């Protein structure tokens, strides 16, 4: 099989993993040195595909042969897909060529399980080692860890990779048992724990060899089973807490060819995925707890974003006086982000905040209006009931009924 054919098959097989970040790596440079590559902490999206997702890394599988039979996965052993396998040298050549052309910032390598979990993991590490040691590649490397592999392989992977990840795939153990019979929550969490431990040790000891400095991430598939958003967000929150994950990615289940009957055959719930990302952002960046966003079982609202939903359900905190309130409470106002909150606080040291100032900061004023007080503005009481506001601010206004 030609290299270009392998690339076609193995990129197609890898695209269901939605992780794409190339951020968080320490500063490295090859200026004037042999070898290639740099990282500066910031991720760079080098292209965007027509599905709106970014291309930051060359994301491929080493092979899509797989012994596992995960029902949601296009590469499961019972799937009738064309199979291919790269040699490690082929992956290295492609990575370096695309990197020189400035098409990518690095490599994201994953693999189907071949021969054994240990063997597969060793092959992934071999590619990273070739890049780092033989080619002195200083770009970004993200390796997908094989959860059943020997934990002793993890320190080696962490030495070459900027980021490691283990996909939990499904938010509950029962779903995993049903849809991914060869995978076990226990080994997945064990792998996450080993990575977390490696990170902590490297941080604690000065001059210790580097270990996955951009941390670890994971992915949950949304919509392949009947788990609700509340369970998903609480699982994410506990992963953030237990293993210091940098990111949880949410991948709307994408129906696959010759789909087994155990998984749905429906258009992917993209809006649901979007709301989960918004909620996840509130967990990581705004100090929200999962229980504040969804106190009981159920899903996030689709017609309004989770911050607005929280504000409408917690009217006792509002309206917020922008001239007095704590920055963290200002950042909880719908339509005002963390950056704008900081800018408002900086500005109010010089002058009283007026409505016009908020508008100049390009906040989403329509959303913010009912929730803020400024020097010259106070929301009207009448017509400000949560129910009315929700109708006004909904992104999918209900169709009027025609009689």
């Amino acid at each position, binding site marked *: 099989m030609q290299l*270009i054919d392998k*690339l*076609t*098959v193995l*990129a*197609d*097989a890898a*695209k*269901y993993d939605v992780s794409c970040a190339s951020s968080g790596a320490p500063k490295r440079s*090859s*200026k*004037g*040195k042999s070898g*290639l590559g*740099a990282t500066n902490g910031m991720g*760079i*999206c080098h*292209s*965007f*595909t*027509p*599905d*709106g*997702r*970014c*291309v930051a890394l060359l*994301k491929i599988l080493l*092979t899509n042969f797989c*012994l596992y039979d995960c029902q949601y996965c*296009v590469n499961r*052993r*019972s*799937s*009738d897909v064309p*199979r291919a*396998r790269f040699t490690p040298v082929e992956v290295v050549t492609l990575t370096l*060529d*695309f990197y*020189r*052309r*400035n098409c990518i910032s690095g490599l994201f390598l994953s693999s189907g399980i*071949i*021969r*054994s*979990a240990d*063997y597969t993991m060793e092959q992934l590490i071999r590619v990273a080692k070739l890049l780092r040691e033989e080619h002195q590649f200083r*770009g970004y490397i993200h390796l997908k860890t094989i959860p059943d592999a020997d934990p002793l392989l993890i320190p080696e992977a962490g030495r070459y990779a900027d980021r490691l990840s283990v996909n939990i795939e499904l938010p509950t153990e029962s779903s995993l048992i049903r849809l991914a*019979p*060869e995978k076990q929550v226990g080994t997945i969490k064990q792998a996450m724990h080993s990575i977390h431990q490696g990170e902590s040790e490297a941080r604690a000891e000065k001059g210790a060899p580097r270990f996955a400095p951009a941390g670890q991430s994971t992915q949950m598939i949304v919509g392949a089973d009947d788990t609700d958003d509340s369970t998903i967000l609480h699982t994410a929150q506990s992963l953030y807490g237990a293993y210091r994950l940098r990111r949880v990615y949410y991948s*709307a289940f994408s*129906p*696959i060819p010759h789909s087994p009957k155990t998984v749905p*055959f429906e258009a*992917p719930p993209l809006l649901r995925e979007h709301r989960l990302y918004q909620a996840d952002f509130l967990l990581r960046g705004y100090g929200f707890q999962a229980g504040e966003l969804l106190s009981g079982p159920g899903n996030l609202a689709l017609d309004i974003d989770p911050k607005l939903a929280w504000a409408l359900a917690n009217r006792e905190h509002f309206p917020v006086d922008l001239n007095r309130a704590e920055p963290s409470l200002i950042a909880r106002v719908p339509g005002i982000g963390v950056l704008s909150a900081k*800018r408002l606080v*900086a*500005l109010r040291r*010089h002058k009283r905040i007026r409505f016009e100032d908020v508008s*100049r*900061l390009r906040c989403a004023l329509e959303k913010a209006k009912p929730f803020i007080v400024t020097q010259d503005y106070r929301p009207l009481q009448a017509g400000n009931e949560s129910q009315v506001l929700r109708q006004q601010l909904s992104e999918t206004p209900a169709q009027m009924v025609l009689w």
Partner: protein
Amino acid sequence: MVSARFDGSFAGWRQAARELLQQGVTADQVTWYSHDGDTDLFAAGTPCATPHLATTAIRVPRQLLNLLESAARYRCADRWSLLYRVLWRVSHGDRSAMLAGDADGSELHKRLKAVRREAHHLHAFLRFQPCHVENGPDFVAWHEPAHDILHSASGHFAERMGQHSWLIATPQDGVYWDGQRLQHQQHCPQEWQQLAQAPGDEGQQLWLAYYGSTFNPARLNRSVLENNMPVRFWKNLPEGPLIPQLMSQARAGAQRDGQAQAVAQRSGKIIRYRNDSEQTPSGSVGPGLPR
């Protein structure tokens, strides 16, 4: 009114602005005329206000100069007058002119953001290709930035490219990295432009194959694509012509699953699951795994 003429560079503007400030010329009294490198520096003379030298030094925060220098890279008709207005206000004690919530500050920060974004676009959407001309650089690229960010932002590629030499040409200016130093030409030489606009090489085919396969047709989302990768860059990206093609294929097929057509057309292979012997992965599988 005062006509302030300078060479079009930030350093030139700064010099002229300092003199005007010392003469107490307010922002609404100045009209700025810039001439770039080719024309005679200050040929049309100095500001016509009566020179009156201030004895006190002008004091502004160091940070302000950095902001003004960055904002000066923003291409627009009143590029320099806003900078002078902000400088005037801050030097007279009104520091809110630097803040995003202020009337002038908000315009300043809008420009700073656009300039930062355009530098990021250079880092993201520039494509090098190997150059096979004798004594030429190893790699060349053609890029069309909307603001004057090439010189300040292209050091990024020296960090990435190791000992390779490279050249970036734009319709306005150009940079050449010989492996040690960055050379900036205010007017991009003709031969640089020709080198950089050479037609795409064979090697791009691999990239196009990757780009086509990593797209999930079941998730078509044109508006997100266009927000993140403005259409004006498409014509200089190798994958640009592929975008409309991929979109119409996805729509025509009204695809419900994510697999690329090129992959779906091939014959597939189910992996037989056997518990017994050790096997190689080339067409068969290894020992069974514990359930």
